[in-house]
């Protein structure tokens, strides 16, 4: 890698590595992609599209990639029996993971409101029958990884890694080795996987923790934090899908997801056991 570009976006640290120099215009475009995405979907800023929906409902027009995100979220919602839902946003906020990061629960766990009858996600945008706080965190960061990588590839880069602090996608020859961070010890890894031209995303429930048993992964069906799975990793062709499946693995059986999606995974249960797809059986240290 000859060039490396690091920046903060959507509340996390990003790093873009390219084999060819990343010119100033391309850096600016990468930042602009992040800003536009944040302006649509961030529930942590008052001027965002989803904040407007939360205030008064109505219709939020989305660019073409919004249709991809909506389709993925709907599929995840259906295959998990409602366990994954953008309507989990208001439940997260009620438990204290709100725009002000208050970390003070204002209500107990409750199921998210149901998608049908309230939320309509079309190819043009999102319509709400009533105000509701949406959270696309299940797959949004992954999609922004995809948007940046696809932009850079279209701009002529053939050797690119976009890494949003562990959610990453690579377009290059050969493979690199990625350590799977130990969910209970950030200085250790529990295994390694090789990443070619594909995406690897990770999710863990034990970092964003703000109270007794409260963390950022909720089962939308119950509104309760998921405590049986503590960490997931997914390899898939694109980062949006990998990110979404990382979330879905907290609330659904891998076999159910495999009927719909093509992916490999590692997941760690709270008791320290791990489960993997066959292709990743050798990925874990023994």
């Amino acid at each position, binding site marked *: 890698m000859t060039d490396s570009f690091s920046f903060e976006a959507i509340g996390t640290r990003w790093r873009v590595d390219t084999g060819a120099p990343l010119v100033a215009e391309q850096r600016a475009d990468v930042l602009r992609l992040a800003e536009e995405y944040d302006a649509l979907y961030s529930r942590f800023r008052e001027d965002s599209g989803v904040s407007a929906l939360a205030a008064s409902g109505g219709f939020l027009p989305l660019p073409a990639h919004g249709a991809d995100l909506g389709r993925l979220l709907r599929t995840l919602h259906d295959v998990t029996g409602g366990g994954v839902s953008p309507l989990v946003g208001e439940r997260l906020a009620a438990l204290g993971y709100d725009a002000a990061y208050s970390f003070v629960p204002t209500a107990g766990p409750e199921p998210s409101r149901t998608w049908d009858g309230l939320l309509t996600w079309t190819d043009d945008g999102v319509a709400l029958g009533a105000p509701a706080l949406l959270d696309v965190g299940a797959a949004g960061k992954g999609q922004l990884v995809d948007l940046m990588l696809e932009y850079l590839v279209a701009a002529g880069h053939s050797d690119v890694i976009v890494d949003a602090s562990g959610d990453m996608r690579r377009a290059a020859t050969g493979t690199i080795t*990625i350590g799977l961070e130990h969910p209970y010890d950030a200085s*250790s890894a529990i295994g390694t996987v090789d990443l070619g031209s594909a995406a690897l995303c990770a999710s863990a429930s034990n970092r964003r923790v703000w109270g007794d048993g409260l963390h950022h992964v909720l089962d939308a069906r119950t509104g309760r934090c998921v405590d049986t799975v503590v960490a997931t990793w997914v390899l898939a062709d694109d980062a949006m899908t990998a990110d979404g499946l990382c979330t879905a693995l907290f609330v659904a059986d891998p*076999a159910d997801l495999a009927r719909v999606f093509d992916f490999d995974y590692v997941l760690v249960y709270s008791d320290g056991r791990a489960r993997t797809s066959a292709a990743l059986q050798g990925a874990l240290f023994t």
Partner: protein
Amino acid sequence: MTERPTRTLPDTLPAARTDVRTGQAGVRLSRRVLTALAAVSILGAAGCAGAEAEPPAPEAPTGEGASQEAAPAESTTEAGSAPDTGAAAGQAYEDGTYTETGSYQSPAGPEEVGVTITLEADVVTAVEVEPMPDNPTTTMYQERFAGGISDAIVGKKLDELAVDKVAGSSLTSGGFNEATGKIKSEAQL
């Protein structure tokens, strides 16, 4: 759901011991028994596939193997032929590797699984299960979920590993970490 069937096999094998003392017929018999056991064990392990077990009953055998299976007492009297197998005295099975095919009923129809068992001194020392279904959907499931649940995870220090990157959660959500850090410092007495 993908626990290896090794646990059930040793429990069940002794029941067949007197049946297989000698020669080719003995080996053949053991294969039949092992196949039935393996099929059942796999069914137990793959219960999530909604499979229904074929009974492992000692179904009436046909052909020359029949006498061996049907009349175990006969073979026990022919102790003299035991050395032919090269097995140690008192050993019930010939050491070796046995491969057979088990079948089960999946939602997609009947499927087959290859089972290879290694026997040493009457002990099953290795079991390998190889999916070999006709149905492409099942192929995908079996390949993905021949993977399984491991024992407890084992950590190795990152500074002792040669990795290009790390994927985990410690670096994610800077906004969250910043906020919690602030709360910690504000909460400090």
